[in-house]
């Protein structure tokens, strides 16, 4: 009946969702008038478990909060512990952390691009993106021993060094990736069909994005120049990062930001490989963390915040994680009202949701 309202449970199992999230969509005909999220399907109690484990064991635990930005979780955690214990990380380790962070950003953005393309039925773009991603995963396995959960960050530095030969391989991989991106970029930026689905979809204003506390590419796509790498953690002090911004505030602008960020990441990897100093890769950290600290790192989806409280024992008193997708959930709910039901998958995927992060 025209004009009547109906509620559609969108998820937790849905073909476009890589992870379980439920959105209860109140529809008026085909138009969404309200969206209510229901989360908690993949809650694993990681924060509580972190209080039971030793602070050194927690590195491997926090990496498993999310597979896609696992290294950045370990990095944020280790940086927090290092601040508490006054440990100075060797220069080479800081650069290695940047290289692995940017490789993570590349594979995360390629994964997102594939999922977004899949959400509007563009299978060949999906496979093109994921094929390129395999090369990044291969170089991560070659340099660290793991494809995604690379487990190289430790308190005081990193566990592995990258040899000269492997550095050359890293450069070769990012060169090949740049060539692959040259095929994909015009498709996302200029293709008529893609633009029909993305331009104007899920638009929020800059004020809304700011007021609702959005982070990462969602904020940058609204013209908010906020990138936590600017503050100079790890080796970002030496490698300057300028936030990439767009002004559209819609799914198209968010896609453009992420594609441009991939080029930026490639440049950062090249710069880090060129400038990396020789020296130690880790210092030993003695003692236990005491006090409280907030550690922040820019993940592919935005800024992650780690609150760590140590009481001088090998166990932490409290670990609290605020992940970027959680911050982007409120803007997502602002994007949905007014859109067509068919555009919901595109809008949800345009914020690059990571539900494992959100629920921990």
């Amino acid at each position, binding site marked *: 009946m025209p004009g009547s309202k109906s509620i559609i449970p969108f998820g937790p199992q849905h073909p476009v969702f890589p992870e379980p999230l439920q959105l209860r969509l109140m529809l008026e005909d085909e138009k969404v008038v309200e969206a209510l999220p229901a989360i908690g399907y993949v809650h694993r109690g990681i924060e509580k478990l972190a209080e039971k*484990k*030793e602070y*050194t*064991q*927690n*590195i*491997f*635990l926090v990496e*498993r909060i999310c597979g896609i930005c696992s290294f950045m979780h370990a990095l944020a955690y280790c940086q927090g512990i290092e601040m508490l214990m006054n440990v100075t990380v060797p220069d080479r380790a800081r650069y290695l952390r940047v290289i692995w962070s940017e490789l993570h950003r590349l594979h995360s953005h390629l994964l997102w691009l594939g999922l977004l393309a899949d959400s509007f039925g*563009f299978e*060949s*773009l999906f496979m*093109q993106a994921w*094929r390129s991603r*395999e090369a990044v995963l*291969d170089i991560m*396995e*070659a*340099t*660290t*021993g*793991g494809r995604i*959960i690379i*487990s190289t960050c430790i308190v005081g530095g990193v*566990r*592995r060094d990258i040899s000269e030969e492997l550095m050359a391989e890293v450069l070769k991989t990012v060169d090949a990736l740049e060539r692959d991106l040259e*095929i994909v970029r*015009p*498709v996302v930026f*200029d*293709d*008529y*069909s*893609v633009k029909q689905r993305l331009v104007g979809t899920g638009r929020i204003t800059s004020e809304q994005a700011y007021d609702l506390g959005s982070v990462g590419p969602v904020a940058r796509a609204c013209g908010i120049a906020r990138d936590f790498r600017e503050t100079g953690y790890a080796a970002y002090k030496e490698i300057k990062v300028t936030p990439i911004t767009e002004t559209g505030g819609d799914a198209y602008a968010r896609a453009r930001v992420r594609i441009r960020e991939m080029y930026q990441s490639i440049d950062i990897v090249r710069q880090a490989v060129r400038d990396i100093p020789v020296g130690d890769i880790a210092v030993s950290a003695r003692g236990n963390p005491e006090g409280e600290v907030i550690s922040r790192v820019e993940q592919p989806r935005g800024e992650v915040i780690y609150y760590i409280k140590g009481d001088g024992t090998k166990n932490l008193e409290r670990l609290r994680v605020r992940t970027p997708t959680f911050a982007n959930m409120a803007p997502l709910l602002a994007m949905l009202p007014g859109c067509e039901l068919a555009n919901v998958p595109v809008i949800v995927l345009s914020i690059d949701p990571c539900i494992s992060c959100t629920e921990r």
Partner: protein
Amino acid sequence: MVSLLKSIINNVLRKPVTRCYPVERRNSFAGSRGHVEMDPSTCTFCGICARKCPANALTVSKEPRSWTLEPYKCIVCGYCADICPRKSISMNPNHGLPGGI
């Protein structure tokens, strides 16, 4: 979608990037953390690895001498290999079959 047409035609004409598993298997890299190996000839059964294992996958006892790894619990982080004082534990780059068969 026309802009990707050239690439799609190239992909059709090229060899696939996927492999015909299990006939053709992917080789591990030299430093891959495939699975954990222990050399009983050098191990002193001190139990440090069992205490430090983040996943509680190891059980070590001095008397009788035993060292057990539960493959379903092991997260292959390689921390045991790093901290072993006698370097009895090492990471084999080849990935084991599921469940450590």
